[in-house]
Protein backbone atom coordinates (compact mmCIF):
# COMPACT_ATOMS: atom_id res chain seq x y z
CA UNK A 1 0.00 0.00 0.00
CA UNK A 2 1.19 3.55 -0.76
CA UNK A 3 2.66 5.66 2.01
CA UNK A 4 -0.20 8.16 2.29
CA UNK A 5 -2.68 5.26 2.29
CA UNK A 6 -0.92 3.67 5.25
CA UNK A 7 -0.85 7.00 7.07
CA UNK A 8 -4.55 7.64 6.47
CA UNK A 9 -5.42 4.10 7.42
CA UNK A 10 -3.49 4.59 10.65
CA UNK A 11 -5.47 7.78 11.45
CA UNK A 12 -8.88 6.19 10.77
CA UNK A 13 -7.77 3.09 12.59
CA UNK A 14 -6.76 5.11 15.67
CA UNK A 15 -10.11 6.94 15.66
CA UNK A 16 -11.92 3.59 15.53
CA UNK A 17 -9.77 2.14 18.29
CA UNK A 18 -10.28 5.20 20.53
CA UNK A 19 -14.05 5.07 20.01
CA UNK A 20 -14.34 1.34 20.66
CA UNK A 21 -12.07 1.50 23.71
CA UNK A 22 -14.29 4.26 25.13
CA UNK A 23 -17.30 1.99 24.56
CA UNK A 24 -15.50 -0.91 26.21
CA UNK A 25 -14.72 1.25 29.25
CA UNK A 26 -18.40 2.22 29.45
CA UNK A 27 -19.51 -1.40 28.87
CA UNK A 28 -17.05 -2.73 31.46
CA UNK A 29 -18.88 -0.89 34.23
CA UNK A 30 -22.08 -2.64 33.14
CA UNK A 31 -20.48 -6.07 32.86
CA UNK A 32 -20.37 -7.41 36.40
CA UNK A 33 -22.02 -10.81 35.99
CA UNK A 34 -22.13 -13.81 33.66
CA UNK A 35 -25.58 -12.68 32.52
CA UNK A 36 -24.16 -9.36 31.33
CA UNK A 37 -20.98 -10.95 30.01
CA UNK A 38 -22.72 -13.51 27.76
CA UNK A 39 -26.09 -11.91 27.04
CA UNK A 40 -25.63 -8.15 27.66
CA UNK A 41 -28.20 -8.55 30.46
CA UNK A 42 -30.86 -9.41 27.79
CA UNK A 43 -31.26 -5.68 27.22
CA UNK A 44 -30.30 -5.26 23.54
CA UNK A 45 -33.07 -3.67 21.42
CA UNK A 46 -34.52 -4.82 18.10
CA UNK A 47 -32.58 -2.31 16.00
CA UNK A 48 -29.31 -2.85 17.87
CA UNK A 49 -29.53 -6.63 17.60
CA UNK A 50 -30.62 -6.48 13.96
CA UNK A 51 -27.53 -4.44 13.08
CA UNK A 52 -25.22 -6.61 15.20
CA UNK A 53 -26.56 -9.85 13.65
CA UNK A 54 -26.11 -8.43 10.18
CA UNK A 55 -22.63 -7.28 11.20
CA UNK A 56 -21.73 -10.80 12.35
CA UNK A 57 -22.58 -12.12 8.93
CA UNK A 58 -21.34 -9.28 6.73
CA UNK A 59 -17.81 -9.86 7.96
CA UNK A 60 -14.69 -10.09 5.87
CA UNK A 61 -15.88 -13.20 4.01
CA UNK A 62 -19.09 -11.60 2.74
CA UNK A 63 -17.77 -8.07 2.14
CA UNK A 64 -14.33 -8.81 0.68
CA UNK A 65 -15.14 -12.36 -0.46
CA UNK A 66 -18.40 -11.84 -2.38
CA UNK A 67 -17.18 -8.64 -4.06
CA UNK A 68 -13.93 -10.44 -4.85
CA UNK A 69 -15.65 -13.44 -6.44
CA UNK A 70 -17.90 -11.11 -8.46
CA UNK A 71 -14.89 -9.04 -9.58
CA UNK A 72 -12.98 -12.17 -10.67
CA UNK A 73 -15.61 -14.45 -12.18
CA UNK A 74 -18.91 -12.60 -12.04
CA UNK A 75 -21.94 -14.88 -11.81
CA UNK A 76 -20.96 -17.36 -9.07
CA UNK A 77 -21.07 -14.47 -6.58
CA UNK A 78 -24.85 -14.13 -6.92
CA UNK A 79 -25.30 -17.86 -6.21
CA UNK A 80 -23.25 -17.58 -3.00
CA UNK A 81 -25.10 -14.38 -2.09
CA UNK A 82 -28.45 -16.14 -2.49
CA UNK A 83 -27.27 -19.23 -0.59
CA UNK A 84 -26.05 -17.23 2.39
CA UNK A 85 -29.03 -14.86 2.50
CA UNK A 86 -31.65 -17.62 2.41
CA UNK A 87 -30.20 -18.98 5.66
CA UNK A 88 -31.42 -15.97 7.66
CA UNK A 89 -35.19 -16.25 7.09
CA UNK A 90 -34.87 -20.01 7.75
CA UNK A 91 -33.21 -19.23 11.08
CA UNK A 92 -36.12 -16.88 11.78
CA UNK A 93 -38.80 -19.46 10.87
CA UNK A 94 -37.33 -22.41 12.77
CA UNK A 95 -34.88 -21.33 15.49
CA UNK A 96 -35.21 -17.74 16.75
CA UNK A 97 -38.26 -17.96 19.00
CA UNK A 98 -37.87 -21.41 20.58
CA UNK A 99 -34.17 -20.81 21.22
CA UNK A 100 -34.81 -17.50 22.96
CA UNK A 101 -37.84 -18.82 24.84
CA UNK A 102 -36.14 -21.91 26.22
CA UNK A 103 -32.48 -21.07 26.68
CA UNK A 104 -30.30 -18.84 28.82
CA UNK A 105 -27.03 -18.18 26.94
CA UNK A 106 -26.35 -20.89 24.35
CA UNK A 107 -28.18 -23.12 21.86
CA UNK A 108 -27.07 -26.10 23.99
CA UNK A 109 -29.46 -24.95 26.75
CA UNK A 110 -32.42 -25.95 24.55
CA UNK A 111 -30.97 -29.35 23.65
CA UNK A 112 -30.17 -30.05 27.31
CA UNK A 113 -33.70 -29.07 28.35
CA UNK A 114 -35.21 -31.28 25.65
CA UNK A 115 -33.18 -34.36 26.63
CA UNK A 116 -33.17 -33.70 30.37
CA UNK A 117 -29.52 -34.73 30.52
CA UNK A 118 -26.77 -32.22 31.22
CA UNK A 119 -24.02 -34.48 29.81
CA UNK A 120 -25.17 -33.56 26.29
CA UNK A 121 -23.57 -30.16 26.86
CA UNK A 122 -20.13 -31.76 26.91
CA UNK A 123 -20.68 -32.95 23.32
CA UNK A 124 -22.21 -29.70 22.09
CA UNK A 125 -19.32 -27.81 23.71
CA UNK A 126 -16.90 -30.04 21.79
CA UNK A 127 -18.47 -29.32 18.38
CA UNK A 128 -18.82 -25.62 19.24
CA UNK A 129 -15.15 -25.37 20.18
CA UNK A 130 -14.03 -27.11 16.96
CA UNK A 131 -16.24 -24.81 14.87
CA UNK A 132 -15.37 -21.64 16.79
CA UNK A 133 -11.66 -22.31 17.02
CA UNK A 134 -11.21 -22.94 13.30
CA UNK A 135 -13.14 -19.82 12.32
CA UNK A 136 -11.28 -17.78 14.96
CA UNK A 137 -7.96 -18.88 13.51
CA UNK A 138 -9.18 -18.23 9.99
CA UNK A 139 -10.34 -14.70 10.81
CA UNK A 140 -7.16 -13.85 12.76
CA UNK A 141 -4.95 -15.10 9.96
CA UNK A 142 -6.98 -12.97 7.53
CA UNK A 143 -6.72 -9.96 9.85
CA UNK A 144 -2.98 -10.48 10.21
CA UNK A 145 -2.60 -10.39 6.44
CA UNK A 146 -4.69 -7.20 6.15
CA UNK A 147 -2.77 -5.35 8.90
CA UNK A 148 0.54 -6.48 7.52
CA UNK A 149 -0.53 -5.01 4.19
CA UNK A 150 -1.94 -1.80 5.69
CA UNK A 151 0.72 -0.82 8.20
CA UNK A 152 3.74 -2.87 7.18
CA UNK A 153 4.02 -4.71 10.51
CA UNK A 154 5.25 -8.30 10.52
CA UNK A 155 2.60 -11.00 10.33
CA UNK A 156 3.17 -12.29 13.87
CA UNK A 157 2.99 -8.79 15.34
CA UNK A 158 -0.21 -8.10 13.37
CA UNK A 159 -1.90 -11.25 14.69
CA UNK A 160 -0.75 -10.53 18.24
CA UNK A 161 -2.13 -6.98 17.94
CA UNK A 162 -5.56 -8.27 16.85
CA UNK A 163 -5.46 -10.79 19.68
CA UNK A 164 -4.68 -8.06 22.21
CA UNK A 165 -7.54 -5.79 21.06
CA UNK A 166 -9.96 -8.70 20.93
CA UNK A 167 -9.02 -9.75 24.44
CA UNK A 168 -9.50 -6.24 25.85
CA UNK A 169 -12.91 -5.77 24.22
CA UNK A 170 -14.28 -9.18 25.22
CA UNK A 171 -12.66 -9.59 28.63
CA UNK A 172 -13.74 -6.22 29.97
CA UNK A 173 -16.73 -5.29 27.83
CA UNK A 174 -18.30 -8.73 27.25
CA UNK A 175 -21.35 -8.95 25.02
CA UNK A 176 -22.24 -5.26 25.49
CA UNK A 177 -18.94 -4.04 24.01
CA UNK A 178 -18.98 -6.80 21.36
CA UNK A 179 -22.46 -5.75 20.24
CA UNK A 180 -21.58 -2.06 20.01
CA UNK A 181 -18.32 -2.69 18.14
CA UNK A 182 -20.35 -4.76 15.69
CA UNK A 183 -23.02 -2.05 15.29
CA UNK A 184 -20.45 0.71 14.62
CA UNK A 185 -18.66 -1.48 12.11
CA UNK A 186 -21.90 -2.36 10.30
CA UNK A 187 -22.82 1.31 9.91
CA UNK A 188 -19.30 2.16 8.64
CA UNK A 189 -19.49 -0.74 6.20
CA UNK A 190 -22.84 0.44 4.80
CA UNK A 191 -21.44 3.98 4.41
CA UNK A 192 -18.39 2.79 2.49
CA UNK A 193 -20.50 0.47 0.29
CA UNK A 194 -22.88 3.28 -0.67
CA UNK A 195 -19.95 5.60 -1.34
CA UNK A 196 -18.13 3.15 -3.62
CA UNK A 197 -21.35 2.16 -5.42
CA UNK A 198 -22.08 5.84 -6.04
CA UNK A 199 -18.60 6.39 -7.45
CA UNK A 200 -18.89 3.38 -9.78
CA UNK A 201 -22.38 4.33 -10.98
CA UNK A 202 -21.41 7.95 -11.60
CA UNK A 203 -18.69 6.61 -13.90
CA UNK A 204 -21.31 4.89 -16.05
CA UNK A 205 -23.96 7.63 -16.23
CA UNK A 206 -25.88 6.14 -13.27
CA UNK A 207 -26.95 3.17 -15.39
CA UNK A 208 -26.63 -0.25 -13.67
CA UNK A 209 -27.03 -1.94 -17.05
CA UNK A 210 -24.04 0.00 -18.40
CA UNK A 211 -21.92 -1.29 -15.51
CA UNK A 212 -22.86 -4.90 -16.33
CA UNK A 213 -22.23 -4.19 -20.02
CA UNK A 214 -18.75 -2.81 -19.33
CA UNK A 215 -17.94 -5.82 -17.14
CA UNK A 216 -19.07 -8.18 -19.92
CA UNK A 217 -17.02 -6.23 -22.45
CA UNK A 218 -13.88 -6.73 -20.37
CA UNK A 219 -14.32 -10.41 -19.50
CA UNK A 220 -16.84 -11.74 -22.00
CA UNK A 221 -20.62 -12.20 -21.73
CA UNK A 222 -20.07 -15.46 -19.82
CA UNK A 223 -19.62 -13.51 -16.55
CA UNK A 224 -23.34 -12.59 -16.63
CA UNK A 225 -24.51 -16.21 -16.57
CA UNK A 226 -23.70 -19.51 -14.82
CA UNK A 227 -20.69 -21.61 -15.73
CA UNK A 228 -17.09 -21.89 -14.77
CA UNK A 229 -17.76 -24.24 -11.86
CA UNK A 230 -18.72 -27.95 -11.98
CA UNK A 231 -22.51 -28.11 -11.33
CA UNK A 232 -22.30 -30.62 -8.48
CA UNK A 233 -19.66 -28.58 -6.70
CA UNK A 234 -21.69 -25.38 -6.99
CA UNK A 235 -24.76 -27.17 -5.67
CA UNK A 236 -22.86 -28.70 -2.73
CA UNK A 237 -21.31 -25.34 -1.86
CA UNK A 238 -24.69 -23.60 -1.98
CA UNK A 239 -26.21 -26.25 0.29
CA UNK A 240 -23.30 -26.13 2.77
CA UNK A 241 -23.36 -22.32 2.96
CA UNK A 242 -27.09 -22.14 3.62
CA UNK A 243 -27.25 -24.84 6.28
CA UNK A 244 -23.90 -23.81 7.82
CA UNK A 245 -24.93 -20.18 8.26
CA UNK A 246 -28.20 -21.12 10.03
CA UNK A 247 -26.23 -22.83 12.81
CA UNK A 248 -23.12 -20.76 13.52
CA UNK A 249 -22.68 -20.63 17.34
CA UNK A 250 -21.64 -16.95 17.33
CA UNK A 251 -24.88 -16.01 15.55
CA UNK A 252 -27.12 -18.18 17.76
CA UNK A 253 -25.50 -16.53 20.82
CA UNK A 254 -27.04 -13.19 19.80
CA UNK A 255 -30.60 -14.51 20.17
CA UNK A 256 -30.08 -14.39 23.92
CA UNK A 257 -29.07 -10.74 24.13
CA UNK A 258 -32.66 -9.56 23.64
CA UNK A 259 -35.43 -9.49 26.26
CA UNK A 260 -37.95 -11.95 24.69
CA UNK A 261 -38.79 -14.15 21.66
CA UNK A 262 -40.78 -11.32 20.03
CA UNK A 263 -37.72 -9.06 19.94
CA UNK A 264 -35.56 -11.97 18.73
CA UNK A 265 -37.99 -12.48 15.85
CA UNK A 266 -38.17 -8.81 14.85
CA UNK A 267 -34.40 -8.26 15.11
CA UNK A 268 -33.82 -11.29 12.88
CA UNK A 269 -36.18 -9.84 10.27
CA UNK A 270 -34.24 -6.56 10.36
CA UNK A 271 -30.97 -8.47 10.04
CA UNK A 272 -32.33 -10.44 7.05
CA UNK A 273 -33.35 -7.24 5.28
CA UNK A 274 -29.97 -5.55 5.87
CA UNK A 275 -28.11 -8.69 4.76
CA UNK A 276 -30.26 -9.25 1.65
CA UNK A 277 -29.81 -5.67 0.47
CA UNK A 278 -26.08 -5.67 1.37
CA UNK A 279 -25.21 -8.82 -0.59
CA UNK A 280 -27.03 -7.53 -3.68
CA UNK A 281 -24.95 -4.35 -3.42
CA UNK A 282 -21.74 -6.38 -2.92
CA UNK A 283 -22.39 -8.46 -6.05
CA UNK A 284 -23.09 -5.34 -8.06
CA UNK A 285 -20.05 -3.58 -6.62
CA UNK A 286 -17.97 -6.60 -7.68
CA UNK A 287 -19.25 -6.25 -11.25
CA UNK A 288 -18.38 -2.55 -10.98
CA UNK A 289 -14.81 -3.42 -9.98
CA UNK A 290 -14.61 -5.83 -12.91
CA UNK A 291 -15.82 -3.04 -15.21
CA UNK A 292 -13.50 -0.35 -13.84
CA UNK A 293 -10.30 -2.26 -13.05
CA UNK A 294 -10.70 -5.59 -14.84
CA UNK A 295 -10.26 -9.03 -13.26
CA UNK A 296 -6.56 -9.24 -14.08
CA UNK A 297 -5.65 -6.28 -11.87
CA UNK A 298 -7.74 -7.78 -9.05
CA UNK A 299 -6.12 -11.20 -9.44
CA UNK A 300 -2.66 -9.63 -9.48
CA UNK A 301 -3.23 -8.07 -6.04
CA UNK A 302 -4.64 -11.24 -4.48
CA UNK A 303 -5.36 -14.59 -6.11
CA UNK A 304 -8.63 -15.02 -4.22
CA UNK A 305 -9.87 -11.53 -5.11
CA UNK A 306 -9.90 -10.38 -1.48
CA UNK A 307 -8.22 -7.05 -2.30
CA UNK A 308 -10.86 -5.99 -4.87
CA UNK A 309 -12.55 -3.38 -2.66
CA UNK A 310 -9.32 -1.74 -1.39
CA UNK A 311 -8.07 -1.57 -5.00
CA UNK A 312 -11.23 0.23 -6.10
CA UNK A 313 -10.90 2.69 -3.22
CA UNK A 314 -7.32 3.39 -4.21
CA UNK A 315 -8.40 3.91 -7.82
CA UNK A 316 -11.07 6.48 -6.94
CA UNK A 317 -9.93 8.27 -3.82
CA UNK A 318 -6.22 7.55 -3.51
CA UNK A 319 -4.74 7.45 -0.03
CA UNK A 320 -7.65 8.97 1.88
CA UNK A 321 -10.36 6.58 0.67
CA UNK A 322 -7.98 3.64 0.78
CA UNK A 323 -7.16 4.49 4.39
CA UNK A 324 -10.85 4.57 5.27
CA UNK A 325 -11.53 1.24 3.54
CA UNK A 326 -8.50 -0.30 5.22
CA UNK A 327 -9.70 0.80 8.64
CA UNK A 328 -13.21 -0.54 7.93
CA UNK A 329 -11.76 -3.90 6.83
CA UNK A 330 -9.80 -4.07 10.06
CA UNK A 331 -12.87 -3.10 12.12
CA UNK A 332 -14.88 -5.80 10.34
CA UNK A 333 -12.50 -8.54 11.30
CA UNK A 334 -12.03 -7.26 14.85
CA UNK A 335 -15.78 -7.11 15.45
CA UNK A 336 -16.23 -10.61 14.04
CA UNK A 337 -13.51 -12.25 16.14
CA UNK A 338 -14.93 -10.71 19.33
CA UNK A 339 -18.29 -12.43 18.76
CA UNK A 340 -16.60 -15.71 17.89
CA UNK A 341 -14.40 -15.57 21.00
CA UNK A 342 -17.47 -14.96 23.14
CA UNK A 343 -19.25 -17.96 21.59
CA UNK A 344 -16.25 -20.16 22.39
CA UNK A 345 -16.08 -18.82 25.93
CA UNK A 346 -19.80 -19.53 26.44
CA UNK A 347 -19.31 -23.12 25.24
CA UNK A 348 -16.39 -23.69 27.62
CA UNK A 349 -17.70 -21.86 30.68
CA UNK A 350 -21.49 -22.12 30.48
CA UNK A 351 -21.91 -25.45 28.67
CA UNK A 352 -18.87 -27.46 29.72
CA UNK A 353 -17.82 -26.14 33.12
CA UNK A 354 -21.13 -25.09 34.65
CA UNK A 355 -23.36 -27.52 32.71
CA UNK A 356 -21.32 -30.73 32.80
CA UNK A 357 -18.62 -30.42 35.48
CA UNK A 358 -20.79 -28.62 38.04
CA UNK A 359 -24.05 -30.23 36.92
CA UNK A 360 -25.70 -26.81 36.48
CA UNK A 361 -25.20 -26.04 40.17
CA UNK A 362 -22.96 -22.98 40.33
CA UNK A 363 -23.52 -19.35 41.14
CA UNK A 364 -23.22 -16.46 38.72
CA UNK A 365 -19.93 -15.22 40.22
CA UNK A 366 -18.21 -18.54 39.52
CA UNK A 367 -19.60 -18.66 35.98
CA UNK A 368 -18.36 -15.10 35.37
CA UNK A 369 -14.87 -16.01 36.65
CA UNK A 370 -14.67 -19.20 34.56
CA UNK A 371 -15.91 -17.29 31.51
CA UNK A 372 -13.02 -14.84 31.81
CA UNK A 373 -10.47 -17.62 32.19
CA UNK A 374 -11.94 -19.41 29.15
CA UNK A 375 -11.76 -16.16 27.15
CA UNK A 376 -8.06 -15.69 27.89
CA UNK A 377 -7.23 -19.33 27.06
CA UNK A 378 -9.14 -19.30 23.76
CA UNK A 379 -7.58 -15.98 22.76
CA UNK A 380 -4.04 -17.23 23.42
CA UNK A 381 -4.74 -20.45 21.55
CA UNK A 382 -6.20 -18.56 18.60
CA UNK A 383 -3.20 -16.22 18.37
CA UNK A 384 -0.70 -19.09 18.46
CA UNK A 385 -2.58 -21.17 15.90
CA UNK A 386 -3.06 -18.17 13.58
CA UNK A 387 0.70 -17.51 13.66
CA UNK A 388 1.36 -21.16 12.81
CA UNK A 389 -0.95 -21.26 9.78
CA UNK A 390 0.62 -18.28 8.02
CA UNK A 391 0.89 -18.93 4.31
CA UNK A 392 -1.74 -21.67 4.38
CA UNK A 393 -4.91 -21.24 2.42
CA UNK A 394 -7.20 -19.87 5.09
CA UNK A 395 -10.41 -20.77 3.28
CA UNK A 396 -9.83 -24.36 4.36
CA UNK A 397 -10.49 -23.28 7.94
CA UNK A 398 -13.63 -21.39 7.00
CA UNK A 399 -14.95 -24.49 5.21
CA UNK A 400 -14.30 -26.59 8.34
CA UNK A 401 -16.39 -24.24 10.44
CA UNK A 402 -19.41 -24.23 8.10
CA UNK A 403 -19.20 -28.01 7.56
CA UNK A 404 -19.14 -28.72 11.30
CA UNK A 405 -22.05 -26.37 12.02
CA UNK A 406 -24.15 -27.90 9.22
CA UNK A 407 -23.39 -31.52 10.16
CA UNK A 408 -23.74 -31.27 13.94
CA UNK A 409 -25.55 -28.23 15.37
CA UNK A 410 -28.17 -28.00 12.63
CA UNK A 411 -29.47 -31.60 12.86
CA UNK A 412 -29.34 -31.55 16.69
CA UNK A 413 -31.35 -28.32 16.91
CA UNK A 414 -33.95 -29.25 14.28
CA UNK A 415 -34.59 -32.64 15.89
CA UNK A 416 -34.62 -31.22 19.43
CA UNK A 417 -37.26 -28.69 18.51
CA UNK A 418 -39.35 -30.59 15.98
CA UNK A 419 -39.09 -34.36 16.45
CA UNK A 420 -40.83 -36.20 19.25
CA UNK A 421 -38.74 -39.38 19.06
CA UNK A 422 -35.30 -37.89 19.82
CA UNK A 423 -33.19 -39.56 22.54
CA UNK A 424 -29.94 -38.67 24.31
CA UNK A 425 -27.96 -41.48 22.67
CA UNK A 426 -29.35 -40.57 19.25
CA UNK A 427 -28.26 -36.95 19.67
CA UNK A 428 -24.74 -37.90 20.79
CA UNK A 429 -24.37 -40.39 17.92
CA UNK A 430 -25.53 -37.79 15.38
CA UNK A 431 -23.18 -35.11 16.74
CA UNK A 432 -20.17 -37.45 16.69
CA UNK A 433 -20.87 -38.90 13.24
CA UNK A 434 -21.40 -35.38 11.86
CA UNK A 435 -18.20 -34.09 13.46
CA UNK A 436 -16.04 -37.11 12.59
CA UNK A 437 -17.48 -37.58 9.10
CA UNK A 438 -17.13 -33.89 8.31
CA UNK A 439 -13.49 -33.75 9.45
CA UNK A 440 -12.53 -36.97 7.63
CA UNK A 441 -14.17 -35.93 4.35
CA UNK A 442 -12.59 -32.47 4.60
CA UNK A 443 -9.20 -34.07 5.15
CA UNK A 444 -9.60 -36.39 2.16
CA UNK A 445 -11.13 -33.62 0.01
CA UNK A 446 -9.54 -31.18 -2.40
CA UNK A 447 -9.27 -28.27 0.10
CA UNK A 448 -6.82 -30.07 2.39
CA UNK A 449 -5.20 -32.49 -0.08
CA UNK A 450 -4.63 -30.05 -2.96
CA UNK A 451 -4.65 -26.55 -1.46
CA UNK A 452 -3.08 -27.25 1.93
CA UNK A 453 -0.81 -30.26 1.29
CA UNK A 454 -0.05 -29.37 -2.33
CA UNK A 455 -0.93 -32.80 -3.80
CA UNK A 456 -2.10 -33.05 -7.38
CA UNK A 457 -5.40 -34.79 -6.69
CA UNK A 458 -7.79 -35.39 -3.82
CA UNK A 459 -8.77 -38.80 -2.46
CA UNK A 460 -12.44 -37.76 -2.32
CA UNK A 461 -13.34 -35.14 -4.87
CA UNK A 462 -15.84 -33.15 -2.81
CA UNK A 463 -15.12 -29.59 -1.68
CA UNK A 464 -18.21 -29.14 0.51
CA UNK A 465 -18.86 -32.44 2.34
CA UNK A 466 -21.82 -31.08 4.34
CA UNK A 467 -24.09 -32.26 1.54
CA UNK A 468 -23.28 -35.81 2.67
CA UNK A 469 -22.52 -35.41 6.39
CA UNK A 470 -25.58 -33.26 7.22
CA UNK A 471 -28.13 -35.86 5.98
CA UNK A 472 -25.92 -38.59 7.47
CA UNK A 473 -26.10 -36.99 10.91
CA UNK A 474 -29.93 -36.80 10.63
CA UNK A 475 -30.14 -40.49 9.66
CA UNK A 476 -27.81 -41.67 12.43
CA UNK A 477 -29.64 -39.61 15.06
CA UNK A 478 -32.94 -41.06 13.85
CA UNK A 479 -31.77 -44.68 13.76
CA UNK A 480 -30.07 -44.60 17.17
CA UNK A 481 -33.05 -42.78 18.68
CA UNK A 482 -35.37 -45.55 17.47
CA UNK A 483 -33.25 -48.12 19.31
CA UNK A 484 -32.72 -46.31 22.63
CA UNK A 485 -34.77 -45.26 25.63
CA UNK A 486 -36.28 -41.75 25.27
CA UNK A 487 -36.51 -40.99 29.03
CA UNK A 488 -38.15 -37.57 29.61
CA UNK A 489 -37.66 -36.56 25.98
CA UNK A 490 -41.27 -37.04 24.68
CA UNK A 491 -42.73 -35.17 27.66
CA UNK A 492 -40.28 -32.32 27.16
CA UNK A 493 -41.21 -32.24 23.49
CA UNK A 494 -44.80 -31.39 24.45
CA UNK A 495 -43.53 -28.64 26.77
CA UNK A 496 -41.31 -27.19 24.07
CA UNK A 497 -44.21 -27.10 21.62
CA UNK A 498 -46.31 -25.31 24.17
CA UNK A 499 -43.71 -22.83 25.35
CA UNK A 500 -42.51 -21.93 21.88
CA UNK A 501 -43.66 -18.90 20.01
CA UNK A 502 -46.83 -16.96 20.43
CA UNK A 503 -48.25 -15.97 23.75
CA UNK A 504 -45.38 -17.27 25.83
CA UNK A 505 -43.63 -14.77 28.05
CA UNK A 506 -40.71 -15.50 30.31
Amino acid at each position, binding site marked *: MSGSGAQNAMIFFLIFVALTLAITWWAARRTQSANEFFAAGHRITTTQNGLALAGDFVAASAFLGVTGIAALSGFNAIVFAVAMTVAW*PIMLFLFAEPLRALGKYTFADVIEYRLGNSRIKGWTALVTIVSVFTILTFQMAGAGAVIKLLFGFSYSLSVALIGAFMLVYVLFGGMIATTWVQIIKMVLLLVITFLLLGLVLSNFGWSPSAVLGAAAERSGAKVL*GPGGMPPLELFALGFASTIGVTSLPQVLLRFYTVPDPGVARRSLLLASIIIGCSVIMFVFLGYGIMAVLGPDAVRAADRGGNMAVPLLADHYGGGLLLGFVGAVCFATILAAVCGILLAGSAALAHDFWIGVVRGGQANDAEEFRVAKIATVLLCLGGVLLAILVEGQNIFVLSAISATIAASTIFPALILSLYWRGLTYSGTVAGLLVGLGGGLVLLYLGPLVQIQMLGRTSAIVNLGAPAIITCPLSFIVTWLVSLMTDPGVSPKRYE*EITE*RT*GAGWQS
Partner: protein
Amino acid sequence: MASNDDSNPHASASLEAARRQRRIGWTMTLILGVIYFTYLFSVVLAPEAMSIPIGGNLTPGLLLGVGVIFAALILATFYVVQANRNDADAARRS
Protein backbone atom coordinates in the same frame (compact mmCIF):
# COMPACT_ATOMS: atom_id res chain seq x y z
CA MET B 1 -45.87 -19.26 31.87
CA ALA B 2 -48.63 -21.43 30.47
CA SER B 3 -49.34 -24.53 32.51
CA ASN B 4 -49.45 -28.06 31.20
CA ASP B 5 -53.03 -28.61 32.32
CA ASP B 6 -55.33 -28.99 29.33
CA SER B 7 -58.41 -28.12 31.40
CA ASN B 8 -56.98 -24.63 31.80
CA PRO B 9 -58.53 -22.57 28.97
CA HIS B 10 -55.58 -20.14 28.93
CA ALA B 11 -53.13 -22.97 28.44
CA SER B 12 -55.03 -24.48 25.52
CA ALA B 13 -55.39 -21.06 23.85
CA SER B 14 -51.64 -20.51 24.11
CA LEU B 15 -50.92 -24.09 23.01
CA GLU B 16 -53.06 -23.60 19.94
CA ALA B 17 -51.30 -20.30 19.17
CA ALA B 18 -47.89 -21.95 19.60
CA ARG B 19 -48.81 -24.84 17.31
CA ARG B 20 -50.13 -22.43 14.68
CA GLN B 21 -46.86 -20.49 14.90
CA ARG B 22 -44.77 -23.62 14.36
CA ARG B 23 -46.94 -24.64 11.42
CA ILE B 24 -46.50 -21.24 9.77
CA GLY B 25 -42.73 -21.42 10.38
CA TRP B 26 -42.46 -24.77 8.58
CA THR B 27 -44.76 -23.67 5.74
CA MET B 28 -42.58 -20.61 5.13
CA THR B 29 -39.42 -22.76 5.26
CA LEU B 30 -40.93 -25.14 2.72
CA ILE B 31 -41.95 -22.35 0.32
CA LEU B 32 -38.54 -20.70 0.58
CA GLY B 33 -36.79 -24.07 0.18
CA VAL B 34 -38.73 -24.80 -3.03
CA ILE B 35 -37.93 -21.34 -4.45
CA TYR B 36 -34.25 -21.61 -3.47
CA PHE B 37 -33.67 -25.14 -4.78
CA THR B 38 -35.57 -24.39 -7.99
CA TYR B 39 -33.15 -21.52 -8.54
CA LEU B 40 -30.11 -23.60 -7.60
CA PHE B 41 -31.18 -26.45 -9.92
CA SER B 42 -31.91 -24.04 -12.79
CA VAL B 43 -28.44 -22.52 -12.47
CA VAL B 44 -26.78 -25.93 -12.25
CA LEU B 45 -28.83 -27.77 -14.90
CA ALA B 46 -29.75 -25.05 -17.40
CA PRO B 47 -26.84 -22.59 -17.49
CA GLU B 48 -27.52 -21.63 -21.13
CA ALA B 49 -31.13 -20.61 -20.46
CA MET B 50 -29.95 -18.61 -17.45
CA SER B 51 -27.47 -16.67 -19.60
CA ILE B 52 -29.80 -15.35 -22.35
CA PRO B 53 -29.62 -11.54 -22.40
CA ILE B 54 -32.92 -9.93 -21.47
CA GLY B 55 -33.46 -6.18 -21.51
CA GLY B 56 -30.00 -4.69 -21.84
CA ASN B 57 -27.30 -6.67 -20.07
CA LEU B 58 -29.42 -8.51 -17.51
CA THR B 59 -29.70 -12.29 -17.62
CA PRO B 60 -32.39 -14.54 -16.05
CA GLY B 61 -29.68 -15.94 -13.75
CA LEU B 62 -28.92 -12.54 -12.22
CA LEU B 63 -32.51 -11.32 -12.18
CA LEU B 64 -33.87 -14.49 -10.56
CA GLY B 65 -31.03 -14.49 -8.02
CA VAL B 66 -32.05 -11.03 -6.85
CA GLY B 67 -35.65 -12.26 -7.05
CA VAL B 68 -34.95 -15.18 -4.68
CA ILE B 69 -33.38 -12.79 -2.15
CA PHE B 70 -36.42 -10.49 -2.29
CA ALA B 71 -38.80 -13.46 -2.09
CA ALA B 72 -36.96 -14.59 1.06
CA LEU B 73 -37.33 -11.11 2.58
CA ILE B 74 -41.04 -10.93 1.69
CA LEU B 75 -41.68 -14.36 3.29
CA ALA B 76 -39.75 -13.28 6.40
CA THR B 77 -41.78 -10.06 6.67
CA PHE B 78 -45.04 -11.98 6.22
CA TYR B 79 -44.00 -14.45 8.92
CA VAL B 80 -43.16 -11.70 11.43
CA VAL B 81 -46.37 -9.76 10.79
CA GLN B 82 -48.33 -12.99 11.23
CA ALA B 83 -46.42 -13.93 14.39
CA ASN B 84 -46.89 -10.48 15.92
CA ARG B 85 -50.64 -10.72 15.30
CA ASN B 86 -50.68 -14.25 16.73
CA ASP B 87 -48.90 -12.95 19.85
CA ALA B 88 -51.37 -10.12 20.27
CA ASP B 89 -54.33 -12.51 19.85
CA ALA B 90 -52.96 -14.94 22.42
CA ALA B 91 -52.25 -12.10 24.86
CA ARG B 92 -55.80 -10.79 24.47
CA ARG B 93 -57.37 -14.20 25.05
CA SER B 94 -55.37 -15.09 28.14
